[in-house]
């Protein structure tokens, strides 16, 4: 998937009340070309784990068929761990209410 031109990242936010929800979301891509522009094939059924600032497990979701995931967290510092067969990736994020964190994670 070439994300150039499309909106990269997590699922469509319409219908989500961003005044009350603190959203962390994104997309998992694999086997992309290293040309500085995010690309690759979306990974469905990857496992994304959300850990709190103390590294404590908070939630886990599998990605959808488009490789996307979403968490409803609280404002603050969080870590994401992505598990797929044969790979593991970690990302640190800071979440705020009103402005969703939208990530592209390439593995």
């Amino acid at each position, binding site marked *: 998937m070439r994300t150039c031109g499309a909106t990269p990242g997590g699922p469509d936010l319409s219908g989500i009340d961003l005044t009350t929800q603190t959203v962390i979301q994104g997309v998992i891509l694999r086997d992309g070309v290293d040309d500085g522009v995010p690309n690759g094939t979306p990974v469905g059924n990857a496992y994304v784990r959300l850990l709190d600032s103390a590294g404590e*497990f908070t939630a886990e979701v599998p990605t959808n068929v488009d490789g996307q995931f979403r968490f409803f967290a609280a404002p603050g510092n969080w870590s994401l761990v992505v598990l797929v067969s044969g790979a593991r990736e970690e990302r640190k994020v800071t979440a705020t209410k009103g402005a969703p964190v939208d990530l592209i994670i390439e593995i």
Partner: protein
Amino acid sequence: MSRETSLVSADWVAQNLSNPAVVLVEVDEDTSLYEQGHIEGAITFHWRDDLQDGLIRDLISKEKFEALLSKNGISNDTTVVLYGGNNNWFATYAFWYFKIYGHSDVRLLDGGRKRWELDARPFVTTVAARKATRYVAKERDNSIRAYRDEVIAAIGKSNIVDVRSPAEFSGELAAPAHLPQESGQIKGHIPTAKNIPWSKAANEDGTFKSDEELKDLYLGAGVDLAVDTIAYCRIGERSAFSWFVLHELLNVANVKNYDGSWTEYGSLVGVPVAIGA
């Protein structure tokens, strides 16, 4: 009640795929994953549609449980192996459920769907046809189920284990972070409850930690396993996971799952609530 009788590995399941005495059941809150692919021969139960009464908030009746199992070709002597996504939360809930209705041989696939997928083991989309049976359930065994009055009476007296995440325990979040945050209930926890998240009992791949690590987890948190224990979470599935750890893997006798959990307790009028870590 031990790791040997209650838990099976992915290798064991792979070796028993064509064993007619074994029926695999995938249990989850969302059975669309089953439709995308499941372990060969597995049938599926939906946590809500198949296992909740629907009219009142309760388990389905003995008669409905018998009909569900009969329709799906499960006999009283079948070895039922449960598994699912969500780190087996709903599968352990179903395990607890099968025990309530007295099924003799029920086991859990260690690591559930996640370990199976991370191992790159195969899934199929064909749904196995099973011949109907005449299943006979036992009367409910309420020795493993806690009701709200018992929970209130246990405050400050016996072990109450809150297995939700620290953020839910402290009152920062009202629901697990993969769900929209609810506003109907009070936030916080049952006073004197110890916060031992279910996730501390599991490895990253969803399999259980060793018996030694599990024992250390509860003893280290100050839980006296000689005293009665009640586990709760939000809707009773994550606490079924921790109930499984205590009752089945560690063979602790007096452990109950409070399936009313925080969605009930946090809505009760006038009961004590604590916040903070």
